[in-house]
């Protein structure tokens, strides 16, 4: 129901509706990282799928590059966090 077991990159790609190479690229740009203790065979939290889809929507819709999309995601997270804190 809540946070599930980490999954392989291919699962994230399928859930986000994108190709695995694209997920790799986002990982290179630091959008998200492998779950702790899985550096040998990297696994990722399933919640990253929606984050990835969001970055990709922003990149395509607003004409950003990868670094820009990752930055936008981080700033949006930041804003939500601050808004939640002031609620």
């Amino acid at each position, binding site marked *: *129901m*809540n946070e599930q077991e980490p999954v392989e990159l291919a699962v994230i790609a*399928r859930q986000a*509706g994108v190709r695995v190479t694209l997920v790799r690229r986002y990982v290179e740009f630091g959008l998200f990282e492998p779950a702790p203790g899985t550096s040998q065979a990297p696994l990722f939290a399933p919640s990253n799928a*929606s984050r990835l*889809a969001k970055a990709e*929507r*922003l990149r*395509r819709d*607003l004409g950003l590059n990868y670094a820009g999309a990752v930055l936008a995601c981080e700033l949006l997270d930041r804003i939500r966090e601050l808004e939640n804190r002031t609620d």
Partner: protein
Amino acid sequence: MAVEFKDYYEVLGVPRDASQEDIRRAYRKLARTYHPDVNQDSDAEERFKELGEANEVLSDPEKRERYDRLGSQWRAQERTTGSGENFEDFFDQQGFGGGDVRFEFGDGDFSDFFGRLFGDGAGMRTSGPLRGLDREALLELSLEDAVAGGRRRLTVEGGRGIDVNFPAGVRDGQLIRLAGKGAPGRDGGPAGDLYLRVRLKPHPTFRRQGDDLDVDVPVAPWEAALGATVPVPTLTGTARVKVPAGSSSGRRLRLRGRGLAKQGGGHGDLHGIVKITVPRHLSDEERELFEKLAEVSDFDPRKNRA
């Protein structure tokens, strides 16, 4: 179905003689403002789709020319017929599409108006499948429902009704993820997820303090003084609780584990709070006994006051 005329210039906020550069600039700025991942307003997504459609038409000189031509004809017709007719009739009369023409647009991202205008499939740029947006909806529950779990019918964006099952022991503020129940994907991409945010409604009897609950326990003066076993309501029924002799108002009687579910397992506690209650009217005999008590007692409740 009537197809409404859309003023794409108005959508982008540019004059009719705007240059391609003006249009591009206006679109980029508004797209950044109304992108549904950026803007949390409920109508942002609708607005963003409109922007995309307006940009699709106006940024392409060929489509813009066609739109301008049809638009001015439509307005001319509106003047002669007194606006009694809709754009769809206009299209049919002009011999543009109608009938069995099928339009293929990514999950209805573009309006019927656009479909009428460019029904030959000159449509949107295809950019491959992409997962739909995640949605969030509020799940308001009574404390009893939160403890027991159950099923609820929710209306989500777009008027869709969905049945959701929620487990026993959900907490205030908890997110429940329903995979694939969010917005549809783009170009065959998977749907996003729906997140239900649990909110526990205030309860007429129980006051919530985090995972713990408080409930008043009214007792008679003699019960408080002599001790008694009294019924106390819980979320699942009634418990019998011992009020020790010599309990004053405000004394907390803990019922361990009868509160709400805790994060990471276990339950909070239920606190019965002693509330000494006196009869509004005394019988002659009661009055006599209280007067007698007042006479013989040297109890001073205000003794320790500074």
